């Protein structure tokens, strides 16, 4: 499949950054507003899915390898579990302990994000949200991409 018409391609290329930014916003504000890693990640991944639809899976598969996506996905998971592991060492000394909230383990961390919005209020949670978001973006995108690729191959096979 060579993708859809030029209009669709152009428009989806223009829209993609906005969708990505919106998704990242949802991830970053996961601890303050409804949303979080999965929701934001799903939004970003849906933006990439739009690219797959507009440009065709074969074109996208050439640009982005599924191998790299799976590495990104494991990095997200490792980040999440690694942050949980840190809880054993710091803070309440329990697995998954939120040692970065109201703390003196990392003094400079409290300074980040100070200002009008005061976004940095949840310690470890935004970091975990980012890890989950990375995993969800990579995972969902890989699923959509691989499936689209596999089905497009079937179609070609039957047409011949």
């Amino acid at each position, binding site marked *: 499949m060579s993708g859809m018409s030029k209009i669709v391609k152009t428009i989806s290329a223009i829209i993609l950054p906005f969708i990505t930014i919106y998704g990242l916003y949802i991830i970053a504000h996961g601890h*303050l*507003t*409804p949303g979080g890693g*999965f*929701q934001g990640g799903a939004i970003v991944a849906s933006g990439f899915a739009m690219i797959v639809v507009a440009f065709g899976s074969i074109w996208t598969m050439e640009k982005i390898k599924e191998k790299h996506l799976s590495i990104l996905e494991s990095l997200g998971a490792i980040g999440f579990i690694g942050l949980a592991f840190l809880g054993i060492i710091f803070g309440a000394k329990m697995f998954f302990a939120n040692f970065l909230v109201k703390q003196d383990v990392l003094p400079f961390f409290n300074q980040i994000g100070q200002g009008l919005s005061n976004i940095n209020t949840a310690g470890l949670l935004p970091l975990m949200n980012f890890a989950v978001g990375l995993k969800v973006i990579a995972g*969902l995108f890989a*699923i959509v991409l*691989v*499936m689209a690729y*596999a*089905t497009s191959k*079937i179609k070609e096979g039957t047409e011949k």
Partner: protein
Amino acid sequence: MIYQIPFIAVALLVLIGLYAVVFKRNLIKIVIGITIIESGVNLFLITLGYREGSIAPIYHGTEEAIRSLPVPQALTLTSIVIGVAVLALMLSFIVYIYRHYNTLDVRKIVGGDEE
């Protein structure tokens, strides 16, 4: 009565989904049936957490107001995430099944020993 409607909807959704799984022959329709059951269960969870006139439990200074319980929503979200994974897995199985058997009829993939 009006508060019972979501529960009736849950029962209907689960039954419709089970009907699709048991009586439909197309694999895709079976998967759709499972997804419908899942929506029913999710609706049930969400309905449990609903209170009339409640607000989201995320704002400061609303301690006096009625806040809805966030736990069922967290459960529903987890269930949705799992549902996505299951759905993706089932659909990719269907892709493979179609490659091997060249059919999506559930009665034709009974397997057996292909020797």
